[in-house]
Structures are given as C-alpha cells and as structure tokens.
C-alpha cells in the first residue's frame, strides 16, 4: 500500500457497468515525508475520502477486493484515511532493521 493525497476527482458517464456508482478520485502519490512523488493516478474510493485528505491506497488486482462480491475493474483503490504518521528519521537515511547486525 502507498501513501497519497486526494487532489481531485473525475467524472465519467460512459464506463464499465461494474464501475457504476463508484467515486473516482485523482491521487498524488507521496513519500513518507509527504513530498509528492510520481504521476497522479485515478483510484476508486472505498472509504469516502474527501478533497485534500491524506490516504493510503492499494494497487493491483487487490484494488477490487474492498467491493467483493462485486469485482469492479480497478487497479487502484483508496482503502484508508491516514490520521497520523510517525517517522523516527527520514526514510532515506534510515538503515533497514534486518541489516543492522551485519555491518
């Protein structure tokens, strides 16, 4: 799962029947430090996220699982709204835990 921010929404009248009634949100992917990274993408919304909210989303086939037994054709879905993030140190400078004893 990845962090992102809701930056907009998309309307589409002509779409697959299994997408009917789904909200389509524009998401800007973020780093753990909340800096923008990568291209914006369209996500389905399983959580009722609103404009500007910090969220996390899931990619791949699993993006349709929140809507089971319906299987909308989605490869990205907002599955949570972030309350807070705690980082001990900037992710870029952190040593992965499993490597600590080996150096």
């Amino acid at each position, binding site marked *: 799962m990845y962090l992102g921010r*809701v*930056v*907009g*929404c*998309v*309307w*589409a*009248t*002509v*779409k*697959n*029947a*299994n*997408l009917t009634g789904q909200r*389509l949100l*524009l998401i800007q992917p973020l780093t753990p430090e909340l800096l923008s990274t990568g*291209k*914006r*993408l*369209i*996500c*389905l919304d399983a959580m009722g996220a609103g*404009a*500007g909210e910090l969220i996390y989303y899931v990619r*791949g*086939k699993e*993006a*349709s699982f929140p809507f089971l037994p319906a*299987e*909308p*054709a*989605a*490869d*990205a879905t907002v599955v949570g709204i972030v309350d807070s993030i705690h980082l001990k140190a900037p992710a870029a400078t952190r040593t992965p835990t499993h490597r600590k004893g080996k150096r």
Partner: protein
Amino acid sequence: MILARVVGTVVATRKDPRLEGKKLLIIKPISPDGKDEPGYIVSVDTVSAGYRERVIAVAGSSARMADGCKDTPVDSAIVGIVDDMRLD
C-alpha cells in the same frame, strides 16, 4: 488507473482467439492538466472510445475484470470515458 488520450488504433489479424472482436487502441498517458506524458499503451477498448477522447485505463490483471475481458490475455483495458475532472 490512469488518465490517457486515444491517439490511434491497432489492427491485427493473427492474434489470440480470445482477442477476436476486441477493439485495440493506442493510448497515451496524460496528466490531469491535459499534457502528454511519455510512453504509450495498446489497450482493449470496452466502452467504444473514439479518437482524441480522454479515457480511464486500467492496467495489470485488473484489466481482465473489465466487461467482456474475463480470461482474455490482456493487461490494459479502457473502462471509462472522462466527462470532466476537477483539481482541488
């Protein structure tokens, strides 16, 4: 899912039998403000999109969940035509 614009079509006679009757379009990813982004994708059209239209394309195994694409060898499908977009 990504935003893209239809920029062309693909015609193929020799192909997997499960792709017969499917419309193949060349789409180019765009940013929400309409600028072209690098790269292109050959995508199966499930919504009868037309030339220059802005569309929503789904990638990966999720493309097989698009209308009529069950158990077909596709990794990208057009699943919607964009009416409008709002950037907050």
